[in-house]
């Protein structure tokens, strides 16, 4: 079984369901990181369950090729608790949003956290009700104007991290959809923690609350307006890493390093403190007064809920024998309600509701407008790139021959095709580096299909270049085969092709905006 787990890849976690989030939604970035991280965690797909409530984020289980339950609004944590007690061997994720978990499901969230059930809660916080078309949510700041608060919300908002800490959560962390590397690290940490892991992810709703987190994600400002928490390290931030957080009494203050202020004066982060006051103080660092922290606020150990429940059950059986549910039901007064003639039929009324006209249309591009460099980089078809023709070999080619071919033709990778010429694998220098180098293997005795990446992710010439960048930057694929509609390789995209394309795309006539 262990061998089978090790060979899982991102693709194994991608389901065949069409993804029904709005184009450009931050949920996609979270999905991509989950599918990237899980293969590394060594957990079998059939041992994994994703449980969601209601909301845009709650469509997540459909897109994961694992078990999943799309449950009742706000009650994903409850269903997950029951599942975990019934089968503690399962690896359970709760996918929820600010509406699902902090509004209707607030109560359930509090109790799963204090119980410390061993599951991972990922709260997608976009500070808006997206699915119901743009009403303010419990995390929308006061003054937020929405369709349901046209003069501005008058409600104090929740700070999800503060709520989790107050509810005695043992693992509390925050990340953001646009810092994909950080998000991957946090998802791994959450997976590894025993007990309830609570992860808030700032997520952009580009339709109803576009830009809610731009202060923390835009490249030119994020380093000065956020701070990455690192255990055991002084809390330092800023593009030039020259600012820090110092504690004056119980109040945090931003200080600039130098002029008598040194790193030793700064607050040092300790995620393992039993007293949650330190983590709570950090959770109160909010925009714009302070840099907003990302990372693990708190990570402590406490007994696990289901371990104790199950142990109690075992102890009771040992002491009193197996129970009889039927006998229990009939142990006290019961009665039967007689059949009667007075059952009412309820007429169901269906009314045609007017179609809402407040959903903004996604902007259509003017097909006649000249293409900007950015449009070319993101949306033009891959066929507009100058792609080298791929070098194709059969699966039975010996690795020795493949190495020689790559050397003589100065190639970084070969594509592996079957007798029909259909793409079956990709064999790259990276495979030699990872699987052969330093080991005593006779390269004439093994064939490329034993080392290649089978059934690699490929794109078509009509797909947008932006998707190439998606696969390259999120998954690190250096080479991406380009195939015709039947699956025959027609080109090979690479980091280098993209660099060359970018280098030629931008003129030196620049303006800041």
């Amino acid at each position: 079984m262990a061998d089978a787990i090790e060979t899982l890849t991102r693709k194994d976690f991608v389901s065949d369901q069409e993804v029904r989030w709005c184009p450009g939604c931050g949920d996609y970035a979270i999905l991509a990181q989950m599918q990237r991280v899980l293969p590394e965690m060594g957990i079998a797909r059939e041992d994994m369950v994703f449980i969601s409530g209601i909301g845009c984020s709650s469509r997540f289980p459909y897109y994961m090729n694992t078990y999943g339950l799309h449950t009742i609004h706000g009650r994903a944590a409850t269903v997950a608790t029951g599942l975990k007690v019934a089968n503690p061997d399962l690896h359970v994720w709760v996918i929820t949003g600010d509406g699902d978990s902090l509004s209707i499901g607030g109560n359930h969230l509090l109790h799963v956290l204090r119980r410390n059930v061993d599951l991972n809660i990922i709260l997608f916080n976009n500070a808006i009700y997206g699915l119901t078309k743009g009403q303010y949510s419990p995390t929308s700041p006061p003054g937020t104007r929405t369709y349901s608060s046209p003069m501005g919300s008058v409600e104090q908002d929740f700070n999800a991290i503060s709520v989790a800490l107050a509810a005695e959560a043992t693992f509390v962390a925050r990340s953001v959809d646009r810092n994909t590397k950080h998000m991957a690290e946090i998802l791994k940490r959450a997976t590894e923690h025993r007990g309830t892991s609570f992860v808030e992810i700032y997520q952009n709703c580009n339709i109803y609350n576009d830009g809610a987190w731009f202060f923390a994600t835009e490249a030119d400002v994020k380093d000065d307006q956020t701070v990455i928490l690192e255990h055991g390290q002084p809390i330092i931030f800023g593009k030039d890493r020259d600012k820090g957080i110092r504690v004056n009494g119980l109040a945090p203050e931003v200080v600039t390093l130098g002029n008598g202020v040194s790193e030793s004066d700064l607050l040092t982060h300790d995620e393992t403190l039993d007293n949650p006051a330190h983590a709570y103080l950090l959770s109160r660092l909010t925009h714009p007064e302070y840099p907003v922290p990302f990372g693990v606020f708190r990570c402590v150990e406490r007994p696990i809920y289901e371990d104790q429940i199950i142990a109690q059950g075992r102890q009771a059986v040992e002491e009193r024998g197996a129970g009889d549910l039927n006998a229990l039901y009939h142990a006290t007064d019961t009665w039967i309600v007689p059949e009667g003639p007075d059952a009412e039929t309820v007429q169901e009324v269906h009314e045609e509701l007017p179609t809402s006209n407040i959903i903004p249309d996604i902007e259509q591009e003017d097909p006649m407008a000249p293409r900007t460099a950015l449009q070319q980089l993101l949306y033009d078809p891959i066929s507009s790139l100058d792609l080298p023709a791929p070098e194709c070999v059969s699966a039975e080619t010996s690795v020795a021959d493949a190495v020689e071919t790559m050397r003589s033709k100065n190639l970084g990778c070969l594509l592996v095709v079957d007798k029909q010429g259909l793409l079956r694998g990709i064999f790259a220098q990276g495979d030699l580096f990872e699987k052969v180098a330093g080991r005593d293997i006779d390269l004439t005795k093994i064939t490329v299909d034993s080392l290649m990446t089978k059934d690699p992710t490929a794109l078509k010439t009509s797909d947008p270049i932006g998707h190439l960048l998606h696969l390259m930057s999120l998954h690190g694929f250096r080479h991406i085969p380009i195939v015709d509609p039947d699956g025959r390789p027609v080109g090979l995209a690479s980091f280098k092709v993209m660099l060359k394309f970018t280098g030629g795309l931008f003129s030196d006539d620049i303006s800041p905006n």
Partner: protein
Amino acid sequence: MNLNYSLHNDTVKHVDLSFYVEVQKDNPVDQVIAKMQDSQRKCALVMDQGKLIGIFTAHDIARRVIDQSEVINEPIETIMTPDPLTLQSDTTLIEAIRFMSDKPHRYMPVVDADRRVLGTLTHYAIIKYMSDHFPEEIYNLPPTPDHFASARAGA
């Protein structure tokens, strides 16, 4: 954010330069490879008394080591690429992209004015830097291009 403006104003110091390991010139080839594999870094910078004297990458392994087992006990110095091309730390990214895109090198050491090594510029780090400018258009994409639904839908 204007990518063109950033590419012309940000320098190579502004991207992640961490994708390398440091080894000494007398380290044997097999130890260097093991160190690279352990840290999953495909680039080793070869140092001599704190000075950069060579570079050794997964590309070199595939070309010069993989089917020539006699070299694995040699010092890395004998098989590395000596005197590697470097970039000054104040090189703008657009200059770096143009410099790297017509050369075979995937890894370009970045040095400061005193020739101290700050890290290694990789193709990947540049691609990641560019993509960070367009999270909505690049990160927020479905797993495959044809995964989009024809219409937005409810729960």
